């Protein structure tokens, strides 16, 4: 059985590797973004992509959707977008006999991979309609609850530059996203390659690499990854230290944060770390996995204080301070260092 599990892990590694290769045919660079997106896919969470316009966010999501052989929908959020535009609505239709009846017109949320483009441009009412679906993997239309087809995977994008006429997501709703991925600007080499690729003939669309069943299998496999109690404790201490009122909080946390990450943040740390271990072909989580995922997992779950904002302390800097402050082993100080 161990060999079988090992083989499954190896297969998963190979599969994800193929997925990387397929995406890389379309997306130049952005390796970390792709990788972190896959973490969320395997962990069963949603991703908030934040980056300047033109960095390939939409293309990335489209490419992932195609490679996954999953149903794909896209919603371009605008201020006049209504919740029903997202979830769908009952419309009055007449049949051939002329008899009229209400029929459900499903919205774009009824899909498996949903691209919520510029989610912060919609009104909070519309945003909440999507966020309910993200949390419950279901939506209610006219009093009827409809389960969404798994794997329901939302990739929302956010433009941090154009803030005019936007409705920033409330912190409670941001917490619904498993990861917040920052899309960086491409380097010079990447930019060169992008220019070469996009100014010639169009390439063929990438082939599907992962079926729906394979995705669900990977998600189950991700849950099987073992994690030691000291590693879980490390994740808990890391999140606990992000609370400014905690005695273990570092000085920068007390100064720059108003609220720290909550229990959902700790759960996300462990879950995403398991995905990382899975992608690494390991059956267990390490301290390094926790540290590696801490930024995308925690950066949107911590609310900065006025002082933190005024001083320009980003949440990433806070996470770095936390990683530096919180020891992996609480009793390390009692032992001689090797």
């Amino acid at each position: 059985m161990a060999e079988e599990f090992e083989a499954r892990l190896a297969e998963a590694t190979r599969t994800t590797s193929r997925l990387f290769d397929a995406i890389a045919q379309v997306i130049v660079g952005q390796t970390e973004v792709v990788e972190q997106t896959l973490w969320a896919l395997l962990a069963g969470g949603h991703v908030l992509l934040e980056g300047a316009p033109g960095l390939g966010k939409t293309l990335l999501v489209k490419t992932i959707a195609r490679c996954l052989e999953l149903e794909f929908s896209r919603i371009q959020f605008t201020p006049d977008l209504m919740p029903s535009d997202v979830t769908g609505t009952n419309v009055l239709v007449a049949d051939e006999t002329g008899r009229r009846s209400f029929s459900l017109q499903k919205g774009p949320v009824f899909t498996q991979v949903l691209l919520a483009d510029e989610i912060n441009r919609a009104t909070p009412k519309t945003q909440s309609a999507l966020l309910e679906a993200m949390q419950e993997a279901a939506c209610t239309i006219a009093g009827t609850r409809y389960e969404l087809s798994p794997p329901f995977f939302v990739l929302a994008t956010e433009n941090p530059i154009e803030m005019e006429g936007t409705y920033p997501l409330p912190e409670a709703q941001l917490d619904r996203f498993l990861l917040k991925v920052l899309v960086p600007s491409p380097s010079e080499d990447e930019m060169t390659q992008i220019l070469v690729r996009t100014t010639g003939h169009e390439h063929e669309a990438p082939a599907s690499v992962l079926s729906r069943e394979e995705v669900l299998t990977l998600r189950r496999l991700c849950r099987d990854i073992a994690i030691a109690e000291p590693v879980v404790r490390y994740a808990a201490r890391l999140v606990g230290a992000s609370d400014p009122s905690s005695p273990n909080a570092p000085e920068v946390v007390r100064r720059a944060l108003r609220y720290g990450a909550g229990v959902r943040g700790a759960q996300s740390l462990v879950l995403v770390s398991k995905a990382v271990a899975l992608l690494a072909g390991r059956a267990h989580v390490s301290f390094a996995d926790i540290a590696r995922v801490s930024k995308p997992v925690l950066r949107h779950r911590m609310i900065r204080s006025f002082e933190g904002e005024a001083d320009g302390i980003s949440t990433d800097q806070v996470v770095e301070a936390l990683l530096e402050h919180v020891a992996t082993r609480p009793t390390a100080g009692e032992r001689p260092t090797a």
Partner: protein
Amino acid sequence: MALRGLATFDAAFTQRARRVRLRVLLHGLLGGLTSGAVVALPFAALAWWTRHGALRLGALACLAVGTAVARFALRGRRWSDADVALFLDEKLRSDEAIVTALGLRDRTTPPAKMVVKAAMAALARELPKGSGPRVVRVWHLLAPIGCVATLWIARLELPPAALQPPPPPGTDTVALENLEGLDEARALAKLAPGDAAQHERLRAIAERAERLKSQLAKGMPRREAQAELSRLRDDVAAERQRLGAGEERRGLEAALAKLANEAPLDAAGRALGDRDLTQFDDEMEKLANRLEGDDRERAKKTLEEAADAARREGAKDVAKSLEEQKKRLEARAEGAEALRELAKSLGEGLSPEGKRALEEMGKDGSPQDRAELGRELAKALEGLSDTEKKRVAEKLKARARELGEKGREGKTLEHLQRDLATPDGQKGLADALKELAQEPTESEVERRDRALGDAARELGQGESRLQQPGLVPVPIEGGSGAPGNAGGSKDPGRAGVSRGGERGEHGAGTKAVDGDGLRARAAAKLNPGAPNAGSVVGRTPGRTGETARTGGTGRLGEAAPGELSGVERSGIPREYREQVGRYFPAR
């Protein structure tokens, strides 16, 4: 590699954990040992400095104590399995496979088996060299350094002891069962006192002597004992000198002036002036034995005048003492005269010893000669025949008739003659002669004076015994009494040296001292560590039983009793005494 044969993860982990824990334990023990060595070094140095030589090696016990303390401290800090696993994961770079495998509740699931497999693979790897728990650290070098330094200190010679200042003289404790003079002072209370006040004084002296004797038996500071003994001796001496003191002094002076006018009473007067009644009595006895006829009568008259003068001046005790001496003079003179007449009557019947005693008694009046004469007379009478005894009796009868008109001597001779006439009388006469040969009985005043004198003398001896031997001056070479170097040095720059009592040769001169450099250094090593011999003497005993503080009780411009007739009692030639005495008229 050693783990290759181990089948289970637990066995592999246990073996690796044991090695890790052993190294941690050794590190802790070595730390304790080093701490002990660090403590032992100053401990040994302190023991060396304070001259506790035996404690220096004992400082090494700090090593054992430090190790034991470390062992005790490590007992509560033993690494748990999770700690060891985390340590191994970190060093073997196994991504927490070992700690994950260790914490698995069910190792039968496929993921668990894979984790255990990964952990086994990690445990199979050797720790990179130097990445295990470090046993020895640089600061552990202090342990051998501390041990070597401690042993070196243990072999060092101890520093010289600091010179302790000598205790103040007399602060040591002295314990004596018997000390001279205390018993004599205690016996003073049994003497017949002259009056009630004297009785109280003598009783107080006796009580203090009793108390001092008790304290000395238990032990007391030498200085306090000396002080109390000195006070006792002073009080005894003062009591002895009380005759003629105070209000009676003028009477004593008047009596002494009378006695000074009679040459035979010269010595007796000096003794009375010294308030030495015993000596006074001795002198008077000699006088009684020596004087004959008119001289004796003049002496008695002078004594009577002196007693009257003393009584007039209010010195009743002095007058009483003089009157007693007058009576004793009469009795003694009567006896001496009888012996002398009996000896003359015997003529050649007296032995040569008797004749010599008779001659000596006439010269200096020695009581011993008188006793010798009495014994020889008794022997001579026993050897006489009845006829010879009758002839002696006749001679005595004739002599009695001859002296009968002159007084008591004649009656005495009549008694002798009658005694020789009968056998019973002869026996009684022999007994009387033997009785005459005996020492004369003392009066109460004399007995008290003698007892006080004995007590003062013995107390003086006791005081000398209490003195510390360290106070005896050390003889110095070349000093008086010790032989000096032969001849003076001829070397210029050195003074001549005395020969010890003789004059030294001082022909050499002293040149100017060259002060450029040190030429000599005094390096006296006399009694090293002890104080220089010397003492401060607060009194100057002139004679046993007296102190230098005796005088000085009178008013200015008046002579003290002891100073009266001082010219006569001095060594000034007789022909100059009158001239010198003008400067010291008696008042």
